[in-house]
């Protein structure tokens, strides 16, 4: 692939005859920036155009305060009961129904960046506290977030900063701060890590709060990344943020999350984003906006170049079917798909991309799509029923073509090979001719066909892509 011209890449996308704003582009934008659109949201985005749609995504819509008030009591009870099992369900609820889905999605990006698991933290209050830090800064300032995370109680337990003493510093946090949170491998030395670890000594947790104990702090001189001084933890974070590698690293993370998992961006391509971060106090919203409005984002090069994360796979189905279902069962299902929120597999987070799909997780995906569409699975009930959805959006007695096209448009924006569409239509035609079980009414049989063909749409290989 020839190098992508950075100037063209980040210029604002203006729809034209060759690159028109259409259903495919609207679906692409809404998939990346939310957890999947409903039929109405998709149509509205097509009608309103790209600029207005991005405006809405950045600003959110609806009453965010009322929504917070709705989920806050549950958070409190989870914290009080230390109910780690309900953490993922709580967040899934927010992802499904938040009036500001982009902010929720960026929170997920940072959860994966500062990947911290409750398997070790074992404290739901701390995990929710970290969520709040990430959510507060999700479209805010990365430098503020990095400083806050460095004394976040969940992180202090996760990477053993708490109780690290002078003379016997624990290196865990210092290493991951540089390797995974700010610089990336190759931009620091083992010596930098050992010196930085000394600056993080003296931190404790007292009454659930971070507490600095000078008696356990190594206040001697340290040399870290070329700077020397009697550094404390905040100095080390500042020094990391000052490295040219830091904005590049963060820009790369955003690129992979929002633009593409298959394009390996050149330093030149990332430079405008990194410069923007550096010049504007690591303002994340600015860069996210640049990306979502850009030529590259809306180009064929970025289209379908991510594997749907399990969260996206599941929530796109539930949101598309306009179902209201219990998120506890969804959380359990997501765990088998390989993405248990608040429980990432390691401090590196989920690797994403092709690693999401192995034999087992692919089968889990297809079988979960069945469970959500067939109405026979008692975990989810009939609350995500493709037949009901169709009745809401199509006239009575739709043709086979109308049924197939509706679901192909909703979930794949009709972008599949003509032969795939034909096979689905043919499936419905044959299904009409077969004799249903004797205890079925004609409606039962018709609804069964709709649910079955919706499931078949969701098993298309294209649906695994984002």
């Amino acid at each position, binding site marked *: 692939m020839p190098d992508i011209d950075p100037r063209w890449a980040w210029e604002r996308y203006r729809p034209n005859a060759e690159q028109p704003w259409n259903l495919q582009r609207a679906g692409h934008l809404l998939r990346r920036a939310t957890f999947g659109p409903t039929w109405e949201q998709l149509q509205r985005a097509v009608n309103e155009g790209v600029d207005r749609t991005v405006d809405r995504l950045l600003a959110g819509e609806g009453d965010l305060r009322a929504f917070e008030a709705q989920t806050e009591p549950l958070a409190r009870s989870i914290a009080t009961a230390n109910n780690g099992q309900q953490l993922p369900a709580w967040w899934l609820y927010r992802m499904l129904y938040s009036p500001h889905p982009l902010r929720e999605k960026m929170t997920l990006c940072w959860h994966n960046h500062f990947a911290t698991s409750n398997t070790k933290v074992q404290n739901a209050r701390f995990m929710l506290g970290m969520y709040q830090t990430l959510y507060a800064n999700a479209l805010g300032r990365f430098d503020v977030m990095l400083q806050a995370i460095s004394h976040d109680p969940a992180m202090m337990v996760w990477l053993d900063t708490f109780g*690290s003493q002078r003379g016997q510093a*624990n290196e865990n946090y210092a290493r991951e701060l540089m390797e995974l949170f700010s610089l990336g491998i190759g931009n620091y030395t083992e010596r930098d890590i050992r010196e930085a670890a000394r600056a993080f000594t003296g931190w404790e947790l007292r009454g659930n709060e971070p507490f600095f104990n000078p008696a356990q702090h190594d206040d001697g001189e340290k040399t870290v990344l070329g700077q020397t001084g009697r550094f404390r933890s905040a100095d080390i974070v500042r020094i990391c943020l000052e490295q040219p590698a830091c904005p590049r690293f963060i820009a790369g993370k955003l690129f992979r999350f929002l633009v593409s998992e298959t394009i390996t961006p050149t330093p030149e391509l990332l430079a405008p984003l990194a410069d923007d971060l550096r010049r504007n106090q690591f303002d994340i919203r600015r860069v996210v906006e640049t990306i979502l409005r850009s030529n590259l984002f809306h180009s064929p090069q970025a289209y379908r170049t991510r594997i749907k994360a399990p969260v996206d796979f599941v929530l796109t189905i539930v949101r598309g079917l306009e179902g209201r279902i219990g998120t506890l069962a969804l959380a359990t299902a997501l765990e*088998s798909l390989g993405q248990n929120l608040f429980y990432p597999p390691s401090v590196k987070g989920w690797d994403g991309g092709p690693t999401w799909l192995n*034999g087992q997780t692919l089968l889990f995906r297809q*079988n979960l799509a069945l469970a959500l569409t067939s109405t026979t699975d008692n975990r989810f009930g009939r609350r995500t029923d493709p037949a009901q959805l169709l009745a809401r959006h199509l006239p009575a007695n739709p043709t086979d073509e109308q049924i197939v096209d509706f679901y192909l448009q909703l979930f794949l924006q009709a972008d599949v090979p003509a032969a795939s569409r034909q096979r689905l239509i043919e499936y419905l035609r044959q*299904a009409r001719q*077969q004799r249903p079980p004797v205890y079925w009414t004609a409606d039962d049989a018709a609804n069964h066909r709709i649910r*079955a063909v919706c499931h078949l749409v969701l098993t298309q*290989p294209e649906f695994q892509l984002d």
Partner: protein
Amino acid sequence: MLTTNRRDFLKSSMVACGLTVPSFLSKTANALQVAGTPGARDTILVVVQLTGGNDGLNTVIPFTDEEYPRLRPTLRIARDQVRRLNDTLGLHPAMEGMAGLLQDNALCVVQGVGYPNPSQSHFRSMDIWQAASTADTLNEGWLGKALRSMNAPAFHIAAGNESAPLAYSGAPARVPSITSLDDFQLRTAGAGDADTRRQREIITGLAQPGGTGTPNPANLLDFVQRTAQNTYQSSQRLQEIGRNYTPRVPYPQTGLANRLRLVAQLINAELGARLFYVSIDGFDTHANQAASHGNLLGEVSGAITAFYRDLAARGHANRLLIMTFSEFGRRARENGSRGTDHGSGAPMFLVGGRVRAGVIGEHPSLTQLDAGNLRHHTDFRQVYAAILDQWLGVPSREVLGQAYEPVSILARR
């Protein structure tokens, strides 16, 4: 070894079934035919990955070394607690089972294993071990490359939250990950058999990829199609093997034991598979290491011992080789959190009926350290070379890119 009777049974049943022979049976029979010809093999390798960086110094313990208690003031294992391997070395007390395997000449310990300029990043170092390379960009695994010349199925038995290992990347066909046989099937909700059949045809038919050759992760649609095609085929094959498996010895109730039990079931089903991969996570013991490390080593030892004894009781001891590794060992001196930070050189274990029993190589010096870390004297690719050349029958140069002096981990026959 397989009995001639079983081999003959499979051959004759193929003849009897004619063209309708199930695909897994035909593959098995082919594998067996190959195994019966001179120079060919039906050996099996099971890799057990210890994720997080296992503390080698508290796994194979130089209990007579005076420096040991100095480096480990709170974490040291008392002399009378270790499970002795010889006069100077002992296993962690939790490893009773594997100490017993040594008595049966089924345990080999290779000490001081690592590679030059060791990385102390979990992720980089794990990639290096799985790719068997220190190149900047690592896309292919050592087992994936080996599979190109093995023509045998392989499996990854996955714990929840675990994706496919890099070690299998580059295989001619995507190696399936499985968590359980019950879950490894494609479900449909047809209104009757004909409907079910049509639905399955559509799902599996859509998975047919356009091209041939190895999957290309840069083309995601192609990647999905190949993964799907391979998965549906494997799933079909695995539905045909028996659901019930009664081990010959009891397995502990642990995650790793469950995964190895499934490996035993798949080996027993004679699918012709020769590579299996399992992992156990949690070895990143930066703080309060003593209890968790003991539990982990107990799980590893208990699971491997039950697995080996189960398969040995079925006559597979001499086709079985189990290899453990971790991405690095840990710092010689403990830290102030009663834990250990990232280190380098560490031991590997090999278990099987044909290993050279005992300890290979010296324990790394506890006084001559590299920035506080134990020095390796054996490159892990020397162990891989022995496994590839002498056990799997795969030319190691093709996999490792150059010749490595093999470690003699196998007994002379």
